[in-house]
């Protein structure tokens, strides 16, 4: 054999050997010993040996003194539950204290299996089930429509959207393991036994938060207990607390809100000015249809969306969807028949659905989505876009009558009031560092300044062109409408991006998809 051939065959041998993988494992390393190391043994003192009684439930207990920051719990949750590549239902954050007497504390956090779970209360399809005996808040993966509203509702950022499946998934306290007497993955994996499952009294009213920087517990009544032999330092705060990052922009939601609010505004205009119905009715109905299509399209599992009425007792999202359904039916009937009474009915239901939309966000309790601001924004958008669109329609297809002047004036007033109200709020929040909305204001000012300035420019163009349109210049009415629409779309984008979400202290924001 020549050297080259020899070498080639040698390489082939080695490559063959490289592909053989059973050698060592087969010879002596395969492990059939089932006698020791069952997942229960070491953890007997870390899980309850009895079932919860009346008024009790299972809860996580985290001993902060034992948690030294290895984060094995996160990877164990991922591995032992067979989750996707980047998926884990446990996160870690960090608290710090100082400058005097510096201090550092890792915070491991998963679902708090709340007594009054905001995720379940917000779910339009009842895809959450709080177990009556154990108190475990379980997510029903096959029920979930992927609307992600629970993500907005949970003040601890627990439910995680799973893009591959189009649904949300979350921690179920490894209930399958617990029911077999085994410890949950995170409990098993903690080298220092910092995590345990305990039976606790189901909380009914509480004050304060789970930890410094955590959302007030009276919202959802979380059951996790963070314990420590030493009191936490007075000045404890989330690590890197001052770092700000814009939240997800949710483009489909922004479009859906602006379009449906515009439709409500149009029907409102049509209802008060019956001479407009021929124009505003069909256009409003078309815009509403577009908005609803966008809203269904953003769902991860749109085919399951027909169940959305199930949650109407508690979920503003369910109510919003029902209201939109009523709005569309009334609107369609109005357009079909042309009866003014039906237009008035559609306008009322339309405005009710705007109210529901606002409540969807108000109910998340994010400070920058507080009731007054959100109602002003949403109803303001309805009136503003309804009136500017009406003027544009009148300019081209109607006549420059008194209605045209009236709606132009209304648009100018609403636009100006909205703009200056927002500016005033932003200034106040920036100045007041103790304000709940300070963080959102910082996001707007420091991270989204370009968008704010662009919006201001659009508002000015819209206002000036709207007024100039009175001089019999229909094109300017159109310009005013389009710039107003763009300004409100931008406003809604800013609404989402600056809506600082509460999270457990020091837990980084998940990477946006």
């Amino acid at each position, binding site marked *: 054999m020549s050297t080259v051939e020899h070498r080639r065959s040698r390489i082939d041998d080695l490559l063959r050997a490289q592909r053989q993988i059973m050698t060592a494992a087969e010879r002596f*390393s395969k492990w059939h010993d089932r006698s020791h190391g069952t997942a229960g043994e070491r953890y007997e003192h870390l899980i309850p040996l009895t079932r919860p009684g009346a008024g009790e439930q299972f809860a996580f207990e985290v001993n902060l003194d034992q948690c030294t920051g290895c984060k094995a719990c996160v990877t164990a949750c991922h591995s032992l539950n067979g989750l996707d590549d980047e998926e884990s239902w446990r996160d870690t954050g960090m608290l710090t204290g100082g400058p005097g007497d510096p201090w550092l504390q890792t915070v491991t956090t998963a679902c708090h299996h709340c007594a009054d779970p905001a995720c379940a209360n917000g779910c339009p399809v009842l895809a959450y089930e709080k177990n009556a005996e154990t108190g475990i808040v379980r997510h029903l*993966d096959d029920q979930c429509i992927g609307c992600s509203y629970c993500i907005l509702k949970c003040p601890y950022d627990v439910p995680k959207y799973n893009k591959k499946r189009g649904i949300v998934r979350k921690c179920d306290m490894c209930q399958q393991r617990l029911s077999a007497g085994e410890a949950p993955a995170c409990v098993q994996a903690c080298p220092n036994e910092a995590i345990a499952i305990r039976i606790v009294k189901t909380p009914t009213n509480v004050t304060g938060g789970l930890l410094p920087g955590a959302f007030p517990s009276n919202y959802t009544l979380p059951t996790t207990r963070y314990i420590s032999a030493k009191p936490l330092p007075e000045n404890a705060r989330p690590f890197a607390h001052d770092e700000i990052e814009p939240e997800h922009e949710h483009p489909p939601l922004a479009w859906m809100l602006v379009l449906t609010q515009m439709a409500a505004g149009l029907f409102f205009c049509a209802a008060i000015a019956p001479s407009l119905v021929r124009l505003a009715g069909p256009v409003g109905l078309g815009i509403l249809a577009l908005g609803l299509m966008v809203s269904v399209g953003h769902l991860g599992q749109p085919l399951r969306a027909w169940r959305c009425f199930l949650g109407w007792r508690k979920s503003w999202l369910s109510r919003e969807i029902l209201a939109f359904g009523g709005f569309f039916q009334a609107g369609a009937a109005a357009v079909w028949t042309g009866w003014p009474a039906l237009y008035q009915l559609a306008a009322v239901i339309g405005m009710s659905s705007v109210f529901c939309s606002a409540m969807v966000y108000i109910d998340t309790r994010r400070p920058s989505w507080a009731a007054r601001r959100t109602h002003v924004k949403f109803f303001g958008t309805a009136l503003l876009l309804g009136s500017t669109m009406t003027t544009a329609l009148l300019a081209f297809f109607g006549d420059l009558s008194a209605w045209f002047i009236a709606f132009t004036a209304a648009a100018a007033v609403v636009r100006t009031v909205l703009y200056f109200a927002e500016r005033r709020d932003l200034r106040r929040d920036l100045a007041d560092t103790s304000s709940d909305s300070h963080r959102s204001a910082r996001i707007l000012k420091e991270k989204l300044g370009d968008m704010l300035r662009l919006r201001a420019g659009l508002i000015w163009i819209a206002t000036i062109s709207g007024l100039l349109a009175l001089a019999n210049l229909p094109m300017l009415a159109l310009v005013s409408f389009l710039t107003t629409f763009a300004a409100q779309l931008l406003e809604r984008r800013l609404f989402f991006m600056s809506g600082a979400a509460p999270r457990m202290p020091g837990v980084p924001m998940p990477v946006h998809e």
Partner: protein
Amino acid sequence: MSIRLPSIIRAFDGPMTRELVLSPGDFGLGKMPQNAQPVAVARSICGFCSTGCGLKIHLDASGEAVSLTPDPAYPVNLGMACPKGWEALTPLAASDRATTPLINGRPVEWPEAMDEFTTRFRGIMDRHGAESCAFLSTGQIMSEEMAFLGMLAKAGMGMVHGDANTRQCMATSAVAYKQSFGFDAPPFTYEDFEVSDVLVFIGANPCIAHPIMWQRVERNPFHPEIIVIDPRKTETAVAATQHLALAPKADLTLLYCLAHWLIREGFVERAFVEAHTTGFDDFAEFVKDFAPEVRLAETGVSVEVFEKAVRTISAGKRVSFWWTMGVNQSHEAVRTAQAIINLALMTGNIGRPGTGANSITGQCNAMGSRLFSNTTSLLGCHDFTKQEHRAKIAAATGISEERMPTVGSLAYDQILAGIETGQIRGLWMIGTNGAHSWIEQERFRELIQKLEFFVVQDMYPTTETAQMADLFLPAAGWGEKEGTFINSERRIGVSHKVCRAPGVALADFHIFQLIAEAWGVRDEFTRWSSPEAVFQILKEVSRGQPCDITGIRDYEMIEAHGGIQWPLAEGSEQPEAHRRLFADGTFFTPDGRARFLFDPPRPVAEPADAEYPFILLTGRGTSAQWHTGSRTSKSAILRKLYPDTLCADLHPEDAGRLGVRDGDALQITSRRAGITATARVAAVVQPGQIYLPMHGAEVNRLTKLDVDPHSRQPSYKHCAVQIRRG
């Protein structure tokens, strides 16, 4: 909801729900996901750090790994693993794995790669002599592979110089032990963590760097006092009962102050010192200059804090001292490590359970490298210059005695300096990412560019270093090959092949076999046929040495015992699970006595000044990161556990002065380079200091090359920088 709605309305079950159904696992695993139920289980030792955790690798029907869990029966980790261990299989499946050899980035087949390797290296060595080519290896490959590499390069190819990234991590401990104890012999066993009544950690953050060792501290039932000596308020410092937040690089002075106080107050264990050590009187004389009242001011530690700590140490019955990179990576590292050893010796805290001067190692097989890399010492810690040693190794390895190297190698920094002077012209880098990890990176990169021929052997062609290679050799990784690692407590463990390497990547062992053949020295390595065959050679190599492992029969015996600590000489009794050295007070020096070694502290190379007023500290970021991240960054779940940008920790006072808040961009500039990082304001560092995790590729552009004169380990923990809001 009391009435259950029908499932058509409310789906409690369905395909998505069933995806997460767990079913009872065999092999003592408890419930496991249905889609990852193992058909068989193999055992392996983790290939990241020196803790050496046992992992149960879950295999499918084809024998390939599907997942893993930590092994509850292994005496090291007791069923626990850190995030890296849990994710050990994930980096193997990374999309950027090397699948073929590359010449200047062009895929080639192995024969062409081998021709290139031999022709180019041989050409350089023919023109410029044997000393013109060198290798730089790693603590991440198996002992058998290290030995093969060391013998192949030196006895086979005739190279003179070779070193490894262990120079960056453990060289100091190796030299300190060798000088003080007569052999590089970390004396402890992990059980010592559990039985000490006082634990002193110097420059070590085991909560983050060795969390599974820290588990043992948490299991200590004696409510021990834990003293942490570290400039930073680390997780370990928070978990400790006492923290001495000393000034950076004031450790040697502080340790001498401790010795001074203990001698002055009469806490020296005279009987032990007299029976088992030499040099104590000189040392006692020397530390007379280190009265705490006078010298403590230099260290930044207050008298009260110092006194509390030293009284704790003096009152301790079983005091153990532990150090890691904060000590090892210093300009006077060896003497600092020996100052710790001196404390243990003079208080008699050695050889008994819960005591010791204990260096916690870094890499999974740094300890294997210290015995078997054939770089600073001849295989098995023998002496290159002694004929009888060369003859012994020749006989043990089957390699001709005249091929045995007769001189030691240059150290990592000297090999690089040799490139500058033209002495070194060809370099072969194996399993390490020097272009990221070596200190003073700009210079490293300039020097690599000067090489005539640069070969990189790695799992990934995408590392900063591999991208500079003329020839790239695709290596199989941990889990795709077999061999043994030696952990921090001298425990030898076996790692198995449980995955197929991608493409034509080969185990380093097989690459060395190919090279031996291509170089024409195959006949010298006929006995080097498999890792297990080489293990038998290494046993022979160790015969009669302090690290004698002739009593270990084979891999199977190692596995059956849950790993075996060295030494285990032929004829020994069955080894116990936990063994420590020096129980009889006899050390490995010719006279059996340990040495007190010391030198006056020296100033750092680059103190902070008006122009560069901050001291830059570098080190581990999180437990989810390993070295340059070539593996850990491939796991999405590990990436979740550390910041996605390079973050710099800054004290609130400094931040206030500079007008910096969390999240602001910082420009950090040293005399060598400038980089950008994201500020995190916290009092975890002291005013005037800034901390950067070493995992950021740009961090070592800032650091300054300065090495310990004995160990030649670089000082990563100190250089001067300026900071601006960027």
